[in-house]
């Protein structure tokens, strides 16, 4: 047999990326999104979700590592019916930085 167990991907060496998602606001959306990442053992470093002014929608901010699977992850996110848009920002985006004082 030639099958081999792949080495687990080391994510910590990669640069971080901030993803900004607009989603429909109803119970279950988070579960659809978290499932995608968990299934692929793609680590989410940070997650933040609040309803938007338009009560039907929420915005989700994700802090993730930029490994080679990120493009595929974004395509999978865009396929979710409740995900309306996905925007990609660099790690320098302030959303998580400004929250850091709550985690010390």
């Amino acid at each position, binding site marked *: *047999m*030639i099958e081999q167990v792949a080495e687990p991907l080391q994510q910590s060496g990669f640069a971080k990326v901030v993803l900004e998602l607009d989603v429909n606001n109803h*119970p*279950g959306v988070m579960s659809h999104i978290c*499932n995608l990442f968990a299934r692929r053992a793609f680590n989410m470093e940070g997650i933040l979700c609040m309803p938007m002014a338009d009560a039907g929608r929420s915005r989700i901010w994700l802090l993730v590592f930029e490994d080679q699977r990120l493009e*595929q992850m974004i395509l*999978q996110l*865009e*396929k979710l*019916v409740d995900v309306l848009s996905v925007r990609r920002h660099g790690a320098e985006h302030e959303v998580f930085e400004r929250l850091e004082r709550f985690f010390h």
Partner: protein
Amino acid sequence: MMEMSGAELIVRLLERQGIRTIAGIPGGAILPLYDALAASTEIRHVLARHEQGAGFIAQGMARVSGRPEVCFASSGPGATNLVTAIADARLDSIPLIAITGQVPLSMIGTDAFQEVDIYGMTVPVTKHNFLVRSAHELLDVIPEAFRIAMSGRPGPVLVDVPKDVQNQRVRFEAWPQPVVAEPNRPLDLKAIEEAAQMINDAEQPVLYLGGGVVHSGASALAVTLAEQAGLPTTTTLMALGTMPSDHPLSIGMLGMHAARYTNFVLEEADLLICVGARFDDRAIGRAAQFCPRARIIHIDIDPSEHNKIKAAHVAIQGDVGQVLEALLPRIKVRLRKRWLSHVDSLKARFPLQMPGLEDARSHYGLIQAVAACLDDDAIVTTDVGQHQMWVAQAYPFGRERQWLTSGGLGTMGFGLPAAIGAALAAPERTVVCFSGDGSIKMNIQELATLAEEGLKVKIVLMNNQSLGLVYQQQNLFYGKRVFASKYRGAPDFTKIAEGFGIQSLDLDQVQNPRAALAQALAAPGPCLIHASIDREQFVYPMVPPGAANTEMIGG
């Protein structure tokens, strides 16, 4: 102003969407919906004997009709029994609407009797799912479920409806319109132009057709492309029949159980044109060594398939039929004599070996003897295992939607209920279900459904007293340590069929198997045709799991 219960609303919306047959099993939490269904004059209910059977009956209908079909199950075990059929629909991109009963809203989360979180459980195996929280929501959810199931890449949708929502009264002004599939995004004409250039410039191109060609109804266009550009054409398991197997440009199925020449042709390709396929591991073997010399054009409706397994030099997003229509006027007529004669010489040197064809009681011989009694109008379903691969190799498929098989999930137990669904969708056709003695037992209770419906489903049971593909792998790759793959008991399948009220034919016992087959296949109504198969007959060639496609064993 209209007023009715949530349950009645679901039934009316399904009627308006054109649903005429629903497979399912009732239970406590879905009884209001069944009560409403009983009053329907439009929809016929087919009572399955296990919810997985109901799911596959609906799949069989959808695979034949190409449109979403519906199954019902109650909460708890009813719903969990559907999960395999839903996951199967997801992996083969089949439009399926599963509607489940749920405990009343106020009891959700209390571990109520027959409560499971089927919504949470089906998140990863559906295209989308809903938990309905008011009867009024149904006016949006049911049409939306259909829109999602049939738009873009098709797939399964689950709608979980609590019992009190089914009973809730709802008032509304107007019916929502029945939905149709969403139009696709405009095509990237620059990419199409580039692809056409690559095809025109290629010396050794190969066309690789997948299930997307079936979903798009594009097999005629795909064959035209092959003929116009002189492309040897391989199909995946899902796409068998999109190019008739006797077409001079057909090089058969690729992958783990392909003929040797097919995988050798792919090895030499300088351009691979992938149309509605997804580079599945059983089709391409070790990804890094698949088509090592080829540039790749990948046409797929689902952009997340592009660059998932193999990087595409040109990726075109869109319905494959629309893309092919735009591509064809840009494709030069080429005869490609040098390349096609090389393909022919590989075919002559490394053909598919089918020993024992003249014996209608051998595995290949039986499959071709069945085919000889039928024409392309017949529908063929299979279960999963050796018989499935032998049929894929040996049956002369001639049209799309002639062949229904569980490709992605590989679900043993698929064949019989899918055949029932196929016969419900196309009662004028003969449906043949090739099965094995391992697979048939996984949904054998649906023989009762089949007998009740009296459909023209002919089960060809290839019995080798084992889980044949497991037995084969243990022999080939686990030092002949055969374990848990041989059956010690030997059920009498003809008696089982008769016990369910289904006629049977034991090919082991007849003088003239071809004549007996012809008679059994032509007769009206269901029949189980039993044939003993030599356990030591393996599926060859075989690419060992994880190996490159050129490292075939046998054949």
